[in-house]
């Protein structure tokens, strides 16, 4: 059965020419044929708003496929401290109005969120901490970002690979444990640990893109430890392409974040098994729908499979491409907004007729065998 299904998927996939423009309904029909004929289809990329994510997960379920997000590695790294230990989190609003200590950790944070300095009002004292000044520390930041933040920063340069050990050493000293370090380094680390312990309400700001997973866990541990005597929390900037919003939608639609499969009919989550790239490179998956309505990022695999692409650009690497509207630009949407840290309504900034991801997927689903639509 699998072989037969596989060959029929290949056969139908070979029919159209990649570049031939076809109308959207024909494209959706062809996409439905490819996905339903596959032995194991993956719905990957998933750069979509909440409505698009809900639809994509339903499509994965309807086709007994898998859903994965283009930034799943970061999603998994952010989830790891939550799944294995403890995590303290706060919002950009609280970081802005309450934090008397802002601890930036890692490089690339400004690139991820160019307005970060203004949004967190880094140059001003925290509005809800009467009379308390704001201290800013940056560990392992890009020099230009640190300089351009618009506030006085106590910066400590460190390479990405050294971040985990560095945070670990600060954590050890904050808890009064000995570490092996040169005198001057020990003084510096002790001084940082004291700064964090002296904060009334500190916020550590980082992201899974800026730190390796172990460093991110170490940071979660530092924040937790500091709460033994004072208040400290953390703000993670979240993966690109609405990764955090897609994760939330996954939680209520399927019970799980991305890297979840419906092979058995029920949702099963396994970060290794349902990694879209691994599934395709290994040949386990034999068709893919790639979604990136926020950009035009290509799929990360090299192996050729029947591929339907749904991006806001003109990506042409697949058999069928539908150009989708960009959430919040071409159409209204809900997404995890970086400036609020919650699922946020976003009105279209330049409304257009470009179709929404959820609308395209609904049309694909209407063409699936057995659909009542």
């Amino acid at each position, binding site marked *: 059965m699998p072989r037969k299904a596989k060959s029929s998927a290949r056969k139908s996939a070979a029919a159209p020419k990649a570049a031939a423009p076809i109308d959207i309904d024909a494209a959706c029909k062809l996409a439905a044929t490819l996905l339903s004929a596959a032995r194991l289809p993956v719905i990957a990329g998933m750069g979509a708003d909440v409505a698009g994510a809900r639809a994509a997960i339903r499509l994965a379920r309807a086709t007994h496929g898998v859903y994965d997000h283009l930034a799943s590695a970061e999603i998994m790294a952010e989830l790891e401290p939550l799944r294995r230990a403890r*995590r*303290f*989190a706060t919002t950009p609003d609280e970081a802005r109005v309450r934090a008397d200590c802002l601890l930036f950790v890692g490089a690339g944070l400004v690139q991820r969120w160019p307005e970060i300095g203004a949004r967190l009002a880094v140059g001003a004292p925290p509005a809800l901490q009467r009379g308390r000044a704001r201290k800013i520390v940056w560990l392992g930041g890009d020099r230009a970002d640190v300089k351009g933040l618009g506030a006085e920063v106590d910066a400590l340069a460190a390479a990405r690979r050294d971040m985990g050990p560095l945070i670990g050493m600060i954590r050890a000293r904050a808890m009064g444990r000995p570490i092996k370090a040169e005198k001057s380094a020990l003084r510096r680390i002790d001084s940082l640990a004291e700064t964090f312990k002296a904060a009334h309400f500190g916020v550590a700001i980082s992201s899974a893109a800026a730190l390796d997973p172990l460093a991110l866990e170490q940071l979660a541990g530092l924040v937790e430890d500091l709460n033994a005597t004072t208040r400290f929390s953390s703000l993670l900037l979240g993966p690109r392409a609405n990764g955090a919003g897609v994760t939330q939608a996954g939680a209520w639609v399927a019970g799980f974040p991305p890297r979840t499969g419906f092979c058995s009919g029920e949702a099963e989550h396994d970060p290794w098994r349902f990694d879209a790239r691994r599934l395709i490179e290994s040949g386990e998956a034999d068709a893919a729908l790639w979604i990136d309505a926020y950009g035009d990022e290509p799929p990360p695999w090299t192996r050729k499979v029947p591929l339907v692409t749904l991006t806001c650009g003109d990506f042409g690497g697949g058999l069928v491409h539908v150009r989708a509207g960009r959430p919040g630009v071409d159409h209204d949407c809900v997404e995890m907004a970086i400036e609020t840290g919650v699922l*946020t309504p976003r009105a279209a900034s330049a409304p257009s007729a470009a179709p929404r991801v959820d609308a395209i997927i609904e049309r694909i689903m209407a063409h699936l065998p057995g659909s009542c639509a």
Partner: protein
Amino acid sequence: MIVRISGGHVVDPLSGRNETGDVWIEDGKIVAPPQGQSADAEYDARNCLVMAGAIDIHSHIAGANVATARLMLPEAHAAYMARPAQTQLAAAGWTAEETGRRYARMGFTTVVEPAVSPHLALHAHLELSDIPIIDKAVLAVLGNDDYLLSALRKGEGATAVADYVALTLQATRALGVKCINAGGAMAFKENVRAFSLDDVVPQYGLTSRQIMEALQDAAVKLKLAHPLHLHMNNLGLPGNVETAIATIDAARGLPLHLAHLQFYAYGKEGGRAFSSAAAQLAEKVNASPHVTVDIGQVMFSDTVTISLDVLRQFTGLKTARPRKGFIYDGDINSAGVVPYSYKRSDFFNAVQWACGLELFLLIDDPWRVFFTTDHPNGAPFTVYPEIFALLTSRDRRAEWLASLPKGVAETTTLGSIRREYTFEELAIMTRAAPAKLLGMRDRGSLAAGATADVAVYGLHKDRAKMFAAARYLFKDGALVVRNGEIVHAPYGRTFRATPGFDRAIERRLDRYYTSLYGLKRDLFSVPDFALPRPQAFGEVPCLA
């Protein structure tokens, strides 16, 4: 279409029916037996109990914290890597879709998500939109927000507070207002680790009592059908019965709903300084007609606690089972998500279990005591049938009590209580009274004109089996469950209250957001365009 449910034991406290007879449905409503017309469809309810659809007034079924719990505990689902085949939380479904289906299976037709922080309202509504079959409502949580506390500090009057509450209800599309450990989350942000009724929130100079009173007054002033829904201070602490009694007195005779009372029924007696004070608390509730309560029954299971009482959740990290947790310092409220396992062999858990049942059985008036486990905090909602069985059988309770650790029986009065709930009392507690408490006048009854939410259960001497799977469930007149299986899964509505207010508060709050947060307030709104089913809202009228 006319539907006849025939020959069942009909129990409907609001219309006074407790008899064998028929229930008729036409166009989604209960109707009087039509003269000279026959039914288009007939359902045999002989040897069945027929009641209105059940209503759960306090169950954490949606929103950001529920999502966090799911993401924190992948191993609690039925399917995650090396895993037990079946877990307690897996039995609760754990997706929006399964939540609706499993509630319906038990004959429930309306469920209230009681803890929605205003800035997370859109998240909650998105998730509720995806819960099929049942109708829903949310309570908006205030009392740990800078805007309110600053207004109270400045001495602004009751009208200003009421306007703010009304605007919050509008913005969050909520049915009522809730307050969780008033001021406690704000105090925790100032590194306060214990916070009681008369403790003062640093920087604001306000006590928990003052904040609670202000919100209670606002609910009265706005004529909200649902009174202030209060999660008191000191949840879970030995000796906290004193807090509960002081809080009932603090209500000043005004309507007040106390959530999950079981978690406040603890004394400090005995060798372990932990005992049941449920009898004392029940007596206080019996003597306080202005107060309604829900229980928050504990059952022995692996579960997860989801609460905006961040202070309590922070303390709870120490006893988490398994040892994980999430602590959230939010804009308007904070929260904590901490897994926990209630064990039959654990003295403290066993006392908690007994406390809940004592309260159910010792509070005399079934119109003022409501059936909850504070899902999933005391236990997942799927254990309800077993609790119905315990309430209706003293023999069953005795069996359970005998299996508990030594010393538990001595610390509670449970073994001496002979009361067994009747079907009529169950119908009041789970149907008629919740409809009244929520102001949902169209339901909770089988009287002509009521919404045709009807649950039919096959009579069985094992009440747990009987209430686990409805023989039939009708939602808005449509058959949705047959023999415990979902046969149709339409989407219900979400109910909200819309009290009037002076629109000046909108401009004022807009300015507040712009100046404090540097953001437009509408980023935290719930606009129609954001919802998959924006039309699916209903209104609960304010009191006359």
